[in-house]
């Protein structure tokens, strides 16, 4: 128990770094997911195919190898990223690709009737997209969002292998020094679990607040 108290600063700093990486890579991933999701529905064939290739590439790479490459291999092209930058960019790229599938699925789930109704009323394509389709698609994205967030959270732990001083990295350090395996790792697992629960609760809350106009509970689908 004392070991936990002594190590608390390391654990705290590790948690802060984990959260920082989590939030930053989430922002990058969200932007990429929306962008790619939209591009994949573009009317221009070349754009659609290019976006698809990009997505398939980043969905197919191993996150660990990707982070490793950005940190250790990129310098050979003259670009030297800090470990944290490499982690944020790597996670953002990979989870942006995964996210684009969620976005695409959500947009397709909005019934084609909505497009037809909007066209009949004289909306332009862009107007329809932004004021009719996206709001509905956004709500459809929420259920898978919880899952994606957890995947991303677990991804931040991978950053430890490129020496980002996040929670997993710190915990391995502490255990190496103190050999107090059980208390440290249990504490760390609980911290991750806590963050995961907080994330999913937030998404549920968002689902409920924004989905008020829906007749049935969102989980029924």
């Amino acid at each position, binding site marked *: 128990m004392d070991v936990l108290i002594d190590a608390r600063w390391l654990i705290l700093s590790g948690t802060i770094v984990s959260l920082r990486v989590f939030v930053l890579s989430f922002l990058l991933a969200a932007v990429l997911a929306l962008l790619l999701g939209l591009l994949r529905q573009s009317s221009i064939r070349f754009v659609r195919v290019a976006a698809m290739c990009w997505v*398939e*590439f980043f969905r*197919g*790479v*191993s*996150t*660990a*190898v*990707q982070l*490793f*490459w950005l940190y*250790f*291999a990129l*310098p*050979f*092209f003259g670009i030297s990223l800090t470990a944290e930058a490499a982690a944020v960019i790597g996670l953002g790229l990979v989870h942006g690709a995964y996210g684009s599938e969620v976005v695409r699925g959500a947009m397709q789930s909005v019934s084609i009737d909505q497009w037809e109704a909007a066209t009949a009323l004289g909306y332009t394509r862009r107007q329809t997209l932004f004021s009719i389709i996206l709001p509905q698609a956004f709500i459809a994205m929420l259920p898978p969002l919880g899952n994606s967030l*957890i995947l991303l*959270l*677990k991804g*931040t*732990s*991978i950053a*430890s*292998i490129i020496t980002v001083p996040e929670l*997993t990295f710190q*915990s*391995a350090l502490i*255990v190496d020094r103190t050999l107090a*395996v*059980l208390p440290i*790792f249990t504490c*760390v*697992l609980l911290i*991750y*679990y806590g963050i*995961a*629960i907080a994330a999913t609760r937030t998404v549920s809350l968002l689902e409920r607040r924004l989905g008020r106009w829906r007749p049935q509970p969102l989980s029924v689908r």
Partner: protein
Amino acid sequence: MFDFAFALSILPQLAVATVTTLVVTISSFFLALLIGVPLLLLRRSGWHSVSRTTAGIIDFIRCTPILVQLYFLYFAMPEFGIRLSPIATGILVFSVHYGCYMSEVYRAGLESVPRGQWDVCVALSLSRSETYRSVVLPQMIYPIIPAAGNYLVHMFKETPLLASISVVEMMFVSAEIGADRFRYLEPITLCGLLFLLMSIAAAGLIRTAEFLYGRRWRRV
């Protein structure tokens, strides 16, 4: 820039490591498929306390990073007198972690079978075991294939994490080569490409399996 000659020369070493990666992935996958079954049964137990506890454990394991779980077991087991090789530890952690995912996949598959099928089996006086064997299981398998396949590929791509407990798999070898020759570009790029190609191939195989299963009776 990219030294192709160098890349070619290290390919054999990486290829050998690929075997380790595949062995770990495939054994963990099959173990996960097995572990998922008792977890599912416990989760669906009539006893509220049992199902709630199981749900909690499954949730906990799924929501926490596999790397921490890996370290945990790797460092904790010797303290209890259990000495497992790094590979065995890796397979154990992967199979339990993904076993939890599989139990949820099984659960979703079970729930995808329409309620009416169960009703009909009661009406025809089919026993519970016969209902599962002849009616429910064959219908459950169809949605399980893509989900399980998806996790297989995920598992495959997470094997580099085992490098941190010194399992000699693909990324371990690339990092070793990189440190050895002071050139990381070629080994890691090759490693990445190998992963990419193999996961795309696997995705294709899964889609084929999905297409082939039950194509006689499904409205394709």
